[in-house]
């Protein structure tokens, strides 16, 4: 106590922010001096520069291949030559010397043929090569109004309409008894759990393929953690207000849970949109009736999941439309981003956010599954969980690509 008192006296006249800023300034000065002196005592670096390049984006135009390349390694990389299918080709680089984490664009005039595969080799000044495969050459759709319109239409077909149709089960949900409703909530949880796993795996796959400098697969986990904590925080903040409303209106937490489910499904559908858009952009997606029908059936079950918590409330139509849009419309946004500005790191992060959000929704829904005795995994709930997983898996087969 003696010492603490003395300290307080010593700095009594100094504002707290100064005490906070002084160490920061000293740290900055020390780092600056260290850098200025070139790391005294550390000597020269040993070994060759570490060179890593990742191709983030491929754009194919008639007679031209354009690659966006990110320097994924710790050292600057100088791009010296380019080959296509093991032949040196002319190219123009936006910048040849690519700094750490910087990007450059290579424009390669090349008479590529529709539907054929190409291997692009990027040579650095040390003779190292980065290889990039174009599995199927297809002209990249130009991001004009027609294209955005097409993606929006696709989003409405596979997102908004099916989810809204699924919500038409609301009257049915109101009629069934409490036990069957618990089963239905369990069905929703099962469905969401499947979507979370699926989004997680998808995110990891994309992250592994993309550059590692921004964290690679860690981005998926970070996204999940961030989304979970953010939603948990929002939930804690809202719960007091919700309790007040509940007491006043006598309604249960149903509408609130429905919103959470809609958000979780919306984030999942955003990821679905990214996948659709980026596949479309690389020509890997055949836009057929079958695909749209498959997605429609698949996403209809999501509508049922949204209305399940609404059994005991009477939401306005406006509110139901809102829920449908929250869950379905992100497909459109995802498709736009996926097709026009696909970035593996950002996509992996977004998939992670979807996982975290869904996990938080499951945590919110789980108590509603409980039966009169307070048991979570009663037979009807287990049946519902399994049914939810089975249905989303089987309908997913319709669109498996």
């Amino acid at each position, binding site marked *: 106590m003696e010492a603490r008192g003395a300290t307080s006296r010593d700095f009594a006249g100094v504002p707290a922010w100064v005490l906070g800023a002084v160490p920061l300034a000293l740290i900055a000065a020390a780092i600056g001096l260290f850098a200025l002196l070139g790391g005294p005592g550390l000597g020269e670096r040993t070994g*060759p520069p570490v060179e890593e390049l990742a191709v983030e984006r491929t754009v194919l135009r008639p007679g031209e291949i354009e690659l966006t390349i990110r320097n994924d390694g710790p050292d600057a990389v100088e791009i010296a030559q*380019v080959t296509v299918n*093991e*032949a*040196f080709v*002319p190219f123009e680089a936006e910048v040849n010397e690519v700094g750490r984490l910087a990007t450059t664009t290579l424009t390669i005039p090349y008479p590529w043929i529709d539907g054929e595969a190409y291997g692009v*080799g990027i*040579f650095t000044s*040390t003779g190292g090569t980065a290889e990039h*495969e174009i599995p199927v050459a297809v002209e990249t759709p130009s991001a004009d109004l027609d294209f955005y319109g097409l993606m929006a239409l696709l989003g409405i077909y596979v997102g908004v309409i099916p989810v809204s149709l699924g919500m038409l089960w609301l009257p049915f949900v109101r009629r069934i008894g409490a036990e069957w409703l618990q089963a239905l909530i369990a069905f929703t949880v099962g469905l969401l759990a499947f979507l979370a796993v699926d989004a997680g795996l998808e995110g990891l796959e994309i992250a592994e393929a993309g550059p590692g400098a921004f964290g690679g697969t860690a981005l998926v986990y970070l996204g999940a953690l961030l989304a979970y904590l953010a939603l948990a925080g929002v939930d804690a903040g809202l719960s007091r207000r919700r309790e007040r409303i509940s007491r006043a209106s006598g309604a249960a937490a149903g509408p609130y849970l429905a919103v959470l489910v809609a958000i979780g499904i919306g984030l999942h559908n955003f990821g679905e949109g990214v996948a659709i858009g980026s596949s479309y952009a690389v020509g890997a997606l055949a836009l057929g009736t079958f695909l749209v029908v498959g997605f429609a059936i698949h996403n209809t079950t999501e509508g049922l999941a949204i209305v399940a918590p609404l059994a005991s409330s009477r939401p306005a139509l406006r509110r139901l439309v809102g829920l449908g849009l929250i869950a379905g419309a992100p497909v459109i946004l995802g498709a736009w981003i996926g097709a026009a500005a696909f970035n593996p790191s950002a996509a992996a992060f977004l998939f992670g956010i979807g996982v975290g959000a869904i996990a938080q929704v499951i945590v919110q829904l789980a108590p509603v599954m409980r039966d009169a005795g307070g048991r979570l995994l009663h037979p009807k709930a287990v049946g519902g969980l399994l049914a939810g997983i089975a249905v989303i898996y089987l309908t997913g087969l319709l669109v498996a690509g």
Partner: protein
Amino acid sequence: MLSKKLTRRGLIASGAAAPALAALHEAVPHQGVHRAFGSEQHAAANAQSGHFGHSGTGMAIHDGFGEASVDHGANGFNPTDVLRDFDYGRTSKLPGGRTLREWTVVAQDKEIEVAPGITYPAWTYNGRIPGPTFRATEGDRMRIRFTNLSQHAHTIHFHGFHLDFMDGMPGIGEGRGGGAIETGETFVYEFDAEPFGVHLYHCHTMPLAEHLAKGLYGAMIIDPKEARAEADEMVMVMNGFDTNFDGENEIYAVNSIPFHYVEEPIRVKRGELARIYLVNLLEFDQINSFHVHANFFDYYPTGTRLEPADFTDTVIQGQGQRGIVELRFPFAGRFMFHAHKTEFAELGWLGFFEVEE
């Protein structure tokens, strides 16, 4: 649920230390590396291909690496000079009247710019790849004083007749000074020039593939006692470089620099006899080939007979095989020669003869 197959691979196998040459920076940006090659493989794809054989329009038919070029000065050798550079050595007479030819060879580690902007940590004989083209006449005595200034043990293994400790074979003849020549050591290889023909020499230290791929090889020509007909003579060593050390070549060439003879076509006289000493020293790929456009040639395998074995426009050589190509160009103009393996050609093993009146 949509599985998206985007194959991305961001792998770089990095080489050994490669301090950037100042010249690197001049090499970029570059354009028109490889315009309208129109190879068999891509002929259909190259809608805008130019025609072959037209010259003097100011438009290169094949640009090689375009405006970019390697820094021959920094490399210490220019393939245009290597082509007609025959090293007869210092000559003197032995007591019996025979001719003694002496050379000095130094092995040294050296950064070589093997394509515009790409450096390779090479091992060289006398600072160049291929090493000097030794030339003697059948029956001469050849004496090569070899000093190893490289950081690694090396040898010179000559194809020809010689004693076992002269074989440049590690583990054989160390007691008599031969075998592996360690850093800083010197050894004198000595043997009779026979048989006549075109031969080769290379390092024979283990791991053998690496010691060859790094650049320790060259051609050796033994002329028959009765000289061959007067001709415009050239040496072409077919080789390549594995710049990323993956056990495959990224670059193919004759006399080391890809597309060099596109940049500087080989000037020959119409109707004059041209003689090419062709040696295949390509590592990793077993088979190499030579093809010349709009012409046929007499081919003398290994050059050990005075009668041609074939009259053709394409020959195939395995690693270590060699032969003599004799031809006359009937027309003035620009004529391509290249490996008749398209991949090698498009990765640099490609050039032009500029036939003048």
